[in-house]
């Protein structure tokens, strides 16, 4: 769902299983089975391309690729048995790995991370792949989050990109006065609201506090959490968000910014592609980093990472590891994250980034202006159950901010059950 949608003919090809021809040769042999959730057109073309190129390099290897939808990934992972296990599966970084690390499904690949290529060029994502001091998979792409705004509306109202909370609110007041909403958002599927919480909490209390909250060390009724909600409420009370957002998905919320009824959206880079397709050219759409709120805390960013993992039951771990090395290699990273592929950021620091207004800004922001740390996203950093209860609370808060006391008490009692 959070993936970019790019129309591509290749994605329409119905067959989801590709078997690379099994010629003799190469030092790898046997079967290699991959199960991924890259069913949208662009990701599908990317994974098929990777399998083709890897297959050409290792003709002795018989590769089987199964592409599921994102929604069925979790069911797929849960139903894996030792006999039917594929060699490589797709999942997400950080805390979202916990259930599968605990159940022993994911293979510990710390040895791979000790290799030179990983140590030198993949250090930035190592933290996101680490649980219990070990690494459990490799990233293949990531993307920035931030505020995407209508440059032309800002010009019309004489606004400039804000850098702190006061400026953000001052801008918003003028936008609201012009009869528009400051931000469009669709919270029907809840997670978009969590993006706002992540940013306001990281800006108010800092990255480390945010992670303490994620790991259950801080109470939801803590004054610092309440301060986050108080800051958030300033925007809600101002009428900053579009009305009835609880009935829209994020895709359904895009027309507001396209029509000029809202001036900005806080979202991941995957929204750029649909916005461009809807007619917002680069002179109408621009990007800024989420503003500073508390000057005493370092800026920290959100950059969700999509990942591949080897299963413990894999019968061809040698080939599986070689595939992961291939995936993160600079050359492959350049190819798959280019505008013709995923249009996102490469995980290998030696890879080149496609020359794109938003990718350039995102890469600069993540590499030089996020000293506090890089978060994965609320529902990847927080345990799944906590995330689902909390995101529902965020949605309620955005509609009925007066219910806050009740909401945080509910979250606090959930914290007691979950950790």
């Amino acid at each position, binding site marked *: 769902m959070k993936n970019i949608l790019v129309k591509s003919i290749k994605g329409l090809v119905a067959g989801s299983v590709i078997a690379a021809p099994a010629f003799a040769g190469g030092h790898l042999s046997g079967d290699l089975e991959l199960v991924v959730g890259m069913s949208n057109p662009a990701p599908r073309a990317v994974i098929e391309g990777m399998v083709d190129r890897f297959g050409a390099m290792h003709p002795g290897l018989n590769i089987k690729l199964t592409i599921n939808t994102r929604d069925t990934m979790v069911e797929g992972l849960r139903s894996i048995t030792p006999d039917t296990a594929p060699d490589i599966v797709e999942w997400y970084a950080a805390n979202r790995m916990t259930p599968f690390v605990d*159940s022993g499904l994911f293979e510990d690949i710390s040895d791979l991370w000790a290799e030179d290529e990983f140590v030198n060029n993949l250090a930035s994502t190592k933290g996101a792949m680490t649980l219990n001091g070990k690494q459990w998979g490799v990233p293949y792409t990531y993307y920035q989050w931030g505020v995407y705004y209508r440059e032309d509306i800002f010009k019309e109202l004489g606004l400039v990109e804000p850098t702190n909370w006061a400026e953000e609110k001052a801008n918003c007041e003028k936008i609201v006065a012009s009869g528009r909403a400051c931000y469009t958002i669709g919270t029907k599927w*809840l997670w978009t609201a969590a993006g706002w919480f992540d940013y306001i909490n990281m800006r108010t209390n800092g990255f480390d506090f945010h992670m303490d909250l994620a790991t259950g060390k801080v109470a939801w009724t803590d004054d610092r959490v309440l301060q986050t909600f108080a800051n958030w409420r300033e925007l809600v009370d101002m009428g900053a968000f579009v009305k009835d957002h*609880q009935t829209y998905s994020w895709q359904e919320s895009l027309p507001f910014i396209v029509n000029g009824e809202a001036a900005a959206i806080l979202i991941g880079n995957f929204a750029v592609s649909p916005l461009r397709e809807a007619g917002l050219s680069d002179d109408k759409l621009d990007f800024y980093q989420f503003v500073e709120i508390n000057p005493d805390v370092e800026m920290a960013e959100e950059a969700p990472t999509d990942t591949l993992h080897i299963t413990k039951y894999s019968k061809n771990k040698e080939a599986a590891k070689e595939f992961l090395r291939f995936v993160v290699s600079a050359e492959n990273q350049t190819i798959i994250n280019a505008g013709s592929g995923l249009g996102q950021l490469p995980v290998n620091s030696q890879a080149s980034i496609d020359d794109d207004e938003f990718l350039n800004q995102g890469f600069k922001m993540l590499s030089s202006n996020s000293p506090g740390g890089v978060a994965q996203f609320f529902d990847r950093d927080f345990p799944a159950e906590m*995330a*689902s209860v909390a995101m*529902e609370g965020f*949605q309620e808060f955005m509609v009925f901010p007066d219910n806050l006391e009740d909401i945080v008490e509910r979250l606090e009692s959930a914290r007691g059950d979950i950790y």
Partner: protein
Amino acid sequence: MPFRASQKSFWNNKKNTPWLFLLPGLLFFALYVIFPIFQSFNISFYKWDGMGKAEYVGLKNYQKLLNDRAFEISLWNNLKWLVLYLLAIPAGLALALFLNQNITGIRFYKSLFFFPFVISQVVVGLVFTWFYDPRFGLLNELLSWVALGPISVLGDPVLVTYGIILAGLWPQTAYCMILYLTGLNSVDPEQIEAARLDGAKKFKMLWYVIIPQLRPATFIAFVVTIIGALRSFDLISIMTNGGPFGRSRVLSFYMYEKALSEHGFRMGYGAAIAVVLFFIMLVFIGVFLWMMYRQEREQR
């Protein structure tokens, strides 16, 4: 040869034949229905994420349910569904009576009314989502003519469940209508004639002569409507995903969220919800069957 004789008598015994025919069905029913029911009972006593080791927690899952407000909301919503969904039965009867006449093109009108039942629930959900849309939906367009609204039915925690039930009533009414139309075909014209001679008219004719003859249709309509109300999962999933903030959930949806959805890893808790739902259905259907049984006995 006693062995041969006994074998022959087993295969030829007329008493055994029905059981032999029933055997495959019974086996599958036991394997795929009865066994999972007891399995759910068992899982509901454990804390289990669906993959790792299950930890026995006794009745703790049920104790948690008692203090879980989301569960309480789902329970009430289930009741709303069960009660309000039954409106499909009188509505279907009214439509059937209306359409039960001989004019040109009646078959065409009948099929128009039956149309919503043919399309999938997913499409019904989407159509109503657009109908309710706070910005361009037909509902608010209509309301604006009488200077009312706009209201966001699916965004309102109070209205949302009623809004979804209304969407569900659309195809369900059509279903009940069809059942009654076939029922009306078998109403005995001689009885109507006799009643007419006795001076029965309009409502009295309907209540004392027609409706009693429609009892088999009513029975089926009741059963399919109750089942339909408990199967409300797809409409909720399409129209609101249980929202806003969980106010349109029913028990089956809550169970899915807790145990099987993207963020759900609490199999034991989900199973406990399923057990509660099971007993609600058992009571509802049990009471209904008992009422039917009593009526039948009175008639004899």
